[in-house]
């Protein structure tokens, strides 16, 4: 119970900071806080799809864009905000079939290229269709959410944060469910998973649907935040690459990584502007650094450091974890190291009782 409480402590602290944030900062920062929540949602959708299921999406901005444009249409028609979130999420999940069906036949780089072309087609053609956006931007109002007015950025932030918390809880539970384990099996060994009776088609389609629905939900908040429908190039190929960078830099296998990455890049924009740097330049450099570091983003780096520190204290051999670790290196990590400590020399003929305690969040 105590270990469980200790592992929850960072989550609780982060939650407290997130809720307290708009009450202790100036209203100017609330805009970036909403953006951080939106980015975190998109990054979370990529954690499920790319980090867990291993399907690389280079066209995810298309789902964000769909959320923006479709959300604007429904909000204009007077549909209540929560209902819009559900409708747009379902519509986006349906659209994700365009990618999910090819993913049943394609792997790795071929699927990545399909998603890239999908993103390009959405940016240059589909989003310019009259019934989605058309040529002219339209305004989006700030609807109320279950009676809560979102006219101020602070209220919008709290509403978005509530949606993010629900999504985080759902995703964390998903990871512990059968389906979550199936996702990892699909990523690590498709053939082996099939041999064990995993329904590959169903799990891939589900992963795409969950991911697309989350990204589109984020898109609705994007439209409400900017109170307008930005140009399709805002949801194009370059933006897709940026969105993939969020969880990669934060940590692709970990919901916490999505939040870290999303928050980091939302607040990086004003910082980059202050230094006269381009945000995407910094993004690219961070991505290169993370891939070269071979850790699972910044959260993976921290976890590796903490683990390495603990191992050094306990005199354990070095172990490597994360999405970018080659199989051969991960295999040499071996079984979890049991720690046996004897308080006194064993009398001859005595029976040794070993109690194994699984360390929290270590080995999956």
């Amino acid at each position, binding site marked *: 119970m105590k270990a469980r409480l200790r592992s929850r402590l960072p989550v609780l602290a982060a939650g407290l900071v997130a809720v307290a944030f708009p009450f202790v900062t100036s209203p100017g920062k609330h805009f970036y806080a909403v953006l951080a929540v939106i980015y975190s949602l998109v990054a979370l959708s990529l954690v499920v799809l*790319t980090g867990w299921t*291993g399907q*690389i999406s*280079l066209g995810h901005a298309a789902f964000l864009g769909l959320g923006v444009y479709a959300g604007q249409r429904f909000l204009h028609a007077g549909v209540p905000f929560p209902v819009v979130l559900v409708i747009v999420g379902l519509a986006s999940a349906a659209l994700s079939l365009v990618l999910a069906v*090819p993913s049943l*036949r*394609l*792997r*790795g*780089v*071929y699927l*990545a*290229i*399909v998603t*890239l*072309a*999908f993103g*390009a*087609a959405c*940016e*240059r*053609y*589909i989003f*310019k269709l009259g019934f989605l956006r058309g040529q002219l931007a339209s305004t989006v109002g700030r609807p109320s959410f279950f009676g809560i007015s979102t006219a101020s950025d602070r209220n919008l932030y709290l509403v978005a944060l509530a949606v993010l918390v629900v999504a985080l809880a759902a995703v964390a539970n998903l990871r512990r469910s059968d389906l979550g384990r199936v996702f990892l099996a699909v990523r690590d060994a498709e053939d082996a998973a099939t041999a064990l009776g995993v329904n590959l088609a169903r799990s891939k389609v589900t992963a795409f649907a969950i991911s697309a629905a989350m990204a589109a939900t984020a898109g609705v908040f994007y439209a409400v935040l900017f109170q307008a429908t930005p140009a399709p190039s805002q949801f194009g*190929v*370059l933006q897709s*690459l*940026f969105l*993939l*960078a969020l969880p*990669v830099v934060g940590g*692709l296998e970990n919901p916490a990584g999505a939040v870290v990455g999303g928050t980091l890049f939302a607040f990086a924009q004003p910082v980059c502007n202050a230094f006269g*740097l*381009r945000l*995407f*330049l910094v*993004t*690219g*450099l*961070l*991505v*290169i650094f993370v*891939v*070269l570091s*071979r850790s699972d983003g910044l959260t993976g780096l921290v976890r590796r450091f903490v683990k390495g520190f603990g191992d050094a204290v306990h005199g354990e051999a070095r172990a490597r974890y994360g*999405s*970018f*670790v*080659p*199989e*051969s290196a991960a295999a040499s990590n071996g079984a979890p190291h049991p720690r046996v400590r004897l308080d006194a020399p064993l009398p001859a003929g005595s029976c040794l009782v070993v109690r194994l305690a699984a360390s929290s969040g270590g080995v999956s």
Partner: protein
Amino acid sequence: MSQLLNYVVAGLSIGAIYALMSIGVVVIYRISRVVNLAHGAMGIFATFVFHYELVGRLGLPVPVAFVGALGVGAALGVFVERALVGPVRRDGILATLVMTVGILLVLTELTVQFWGPDQPVIRSIFSDRTIRFAGTGVTVHQLGTAVFVAALGAGLYVLLNRTRYGRAIEAIAMDPGAARIVGLPVRRITTVTWAIGGASAALAGMLYIHLNTLEQFSLTFVLISSLVAAVLGGFNSLPLAVAGSLAVGVSFSLAQGYLNDPGIGDLIVFAALLVVLLVFRSGKTTALDTVSEF
């Protein structure tokens, strides 16, 4: 009739650029088993150096600057291989793809950081004089592009498929360790091949941008079309890549001409990609994907 011919010629002209790009992508894939998403960005970066530094600041004559820019592209290719892609090559497809995405972002944004967001028209080593025939016409620049494609494609085809060097590339891609044991200079061959790939990116950049304005991201859209053609040959076949590029270019041009909708081409590329992958190449997509240990 003459309008059809016009569209076909325009399509072949853009298809030639696609072909240049896909040749570079295929060459790099042959040696490293990495699909270089940063190929367009590398070409654009070299083109910026050509326009702003070599021609603009140093005032070199255009042909000299042209060769210089090819050198810049080659150097860029070598740097990317040595410092960035090479070290993570064995970490799997996610690592290499994300790495090339990072390089794409950095190179694209560096051009804006260094040279600003202007989109000037750049110079070409060929003149823009139009040669007229049969009711249509091509510029010398377009003909020159076609000659480059033919020469580079044929030269690399011979190099890759008919020489010991090409067999060495295949050996290195399949098993670098074994290639080294039989005495192949693995590092040098890898470096030279990436240099060829980088130079071809620079070539495609300069030839493409002359027909358009110098937009930072335009060549990456070209790359997406080129990837369709490269996929047709499984990233392995140069003739299929070139033929596919020309086909994509012509269908692009016909669609835009007759449907009068500038964005429809990208939809066609996406549809063509699905058809190529799911119909023509079903079951063969993993044949070349093995990468062994160093």
